[in-house]
């Protein structure tokens, strides 16, 4: 199973405000009634994009036509906390996001995203604020997440050092973000470990 090497992701950005954006917010539980992930994209951030009483579109940045093409999500601290639902990164990915830049990520969300080849990298609050300002002034500003060089650059001239756990970065750039083949290949070692565990 040869996987694509994700060395760099480029696209325009959109900033979604708020700290501790949990996975219930990213994809409300009622949209999890499904047996495949297809079709989850349209429900990303549903309850904050549509007024719950009137059903009308809110002023959420994802409703702003200027950011319609955005494929890089900019966010705050502890993005993706709460429920372990993979429906959350799946809905963002199906919506069209190819990467997330935040101040920090919740662990399970981070791992789930990496396995979908959707890099999650961190910058400081001040750096994210600069990118936000730039994309809000000009939505056509292109952001590049260069995983090989560990930099985030923009067509507006930003150039920041990004952070990402080395194991995830390596998995993305060397095309090993989905570990299934390696796990399968170690079958004999797995059997040995199992044999040593009296309860298995």
């Amino acid at each position, binding site marked *: 199973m040869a996987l694509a090497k994700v060395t760099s992701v480029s696209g325009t950005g959109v900033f979604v405000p708020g700290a501790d954006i949990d996975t219930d917010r990213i994809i409300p539980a009622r949209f999890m009634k499904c047996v495949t992930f297809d079709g989850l994209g349209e429900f990303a951030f549903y309850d904050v994009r549509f007024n719950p009483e009137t059903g009308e579109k809110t002023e959420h940045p994802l409703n702003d036509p200027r950011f319609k093409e955005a494929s890089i999500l900019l966010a705050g601290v502890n993005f993706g906390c709460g429920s372990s639902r*993979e429906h959350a990164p799946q809905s963002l990915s199906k919506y069209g996001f190819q990467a997330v830049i935040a101040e920090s990520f919740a662990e*399970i969300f981070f791992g789930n995203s990496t396995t979908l080849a959707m890099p999650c990298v961190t910058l400081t609050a001040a750096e994210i604020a600069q990118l936000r300002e730039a994309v809000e002034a000009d939505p056509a500003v292109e952001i590049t997440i260069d995983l090989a060089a560990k930099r985030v650059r923009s067509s507006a001239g930003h150039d920041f050092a990004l952070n990402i756990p080395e194991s995830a970065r390596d998995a993305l750039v060397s095309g090993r973000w989905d570990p299934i083949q390696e796990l399968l290949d*170690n079958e004999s070692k*797995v059997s040995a470990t199992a044999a040593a565990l009296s309860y298995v």
Partner: protein
Amino acid sequence: MGKSLYQKVWESHAVSTLADGRTQVFIGTHLIHEVTSPQAFGMLRDLGLKVKYPQRTFATVDHIVPTENQDQPVDPLAAEMMAALQSNADDFNVTYFDLKSGKQGIVHVVGPEQGITQPGTTIACGDSHTATHGAFGAIAFGIGTTQVRDVLATQTMAMEALKVRRIEVNGKLRPGVYAKDVILHIIRQLGAKGGIGYCYEYAGNIFDEMSMEERMTVCNMSIEGGARCGYVNPDEKTVAYLKGRPYVDMSDFEATAARWLSFASDPDATFDDVVKIDAGEIEPTVTWGISPDHGIAISETIPDPAAAATPVEKASIEEALAYMKLPAGTPIKGVKVDVAFIGSCTNGRLSDFREVAKYIQGHKVAEGVKAIAVPGSQIVAQLCKQEGIDKIFTAAGFEWREAGCSMCLAMNPDKLVGDQLCASSSNRNFKGRQGSPTGRTVLMSPVMVAAAAIRGSVADARELFDLAPQSAVA
């Protein structure tokens, strides 16, 4: 040098080091439910793979089950999910505790009940509250659906080692202070992000003295503190709880018990961090906001953004209060409630209903409050019935329901309507968590939920139920 339980379990389950530096970890027990497994089985089929250890995989249905009558027709999507779980269990030879088994329930209630959850094991489930099983000295954690696929296909997954923080709570709990208050207090102290990168070891006389069910309440909410998993070291109580349960091998139980106990952290084990908390400081705790670390003692007032230490904190309090429609600086006690919910994998076990039943006799749920009690499993429901607990609840004006997750996340028909405020024994107070995008949740212990239901407002159960002596804090 001594080892912690976490280290011992990790080392005995480590298979290999992967090319990306992560560890391939053997998962001894895999629990699955209807929401996060169908896509994983789909991926398995796409890859032409089988379930590697079907005898180590156990399924049940919990999130979407209707609780008014489990047999009532469910909406077509829910029906499709249930049918998918049944056919996946059949096709891949997986044990399935279905609605007719008499053993169905919330996956984190069923595992311990059946004796599937055991000390010194690794347990994974596509559900973030899998940490519950840590009460038995297991390393148990939630995983995403792609990892569910990995575990189905290989009984292993790729993982990075966690740090271990020992949280010691010593002293004496005041009357009316429960396991739920202990964990809400810990999360309030350490924050909802405080545990990122950690596994929590809960230690000290308070956890030693807790029943297994109380330990489950604590471990359940580890994830709400940001920790991937949490555990209590196995002891004689753990052994006594498991003895004779269906999935416990009784052939040489003494040896099994000795092996279980050997996983407990060594006295000279070292930890990456140690936090000490005085049990006497803990008050009945309730949340006022939209994150589980938005907790205050029942005697305190709702935070005022004006008093926030940083602009970030100020904005976060403002956002929470705007959503909760609560006035800053006023007492939380007395805030009107519309719904009261006792149930969930945090507080839906026999001891929870028993404890509430002790106090609600002779009381009535306030007019206009919808109060529901939802046992965590069919077995809990059965035991409550045998003890007449269901009658005590219905006499007090609660609706007594059938087993499921119910209003914890409202994927079934039990939902808040509009901006109803719910006093809830569950674990999450996120925006929209209980089924209405504007619904509001106040987390608390089951006895506090009962007090709120009876008063019609957030109340101090110690006053209503006369749980003297009163706390020092007025």
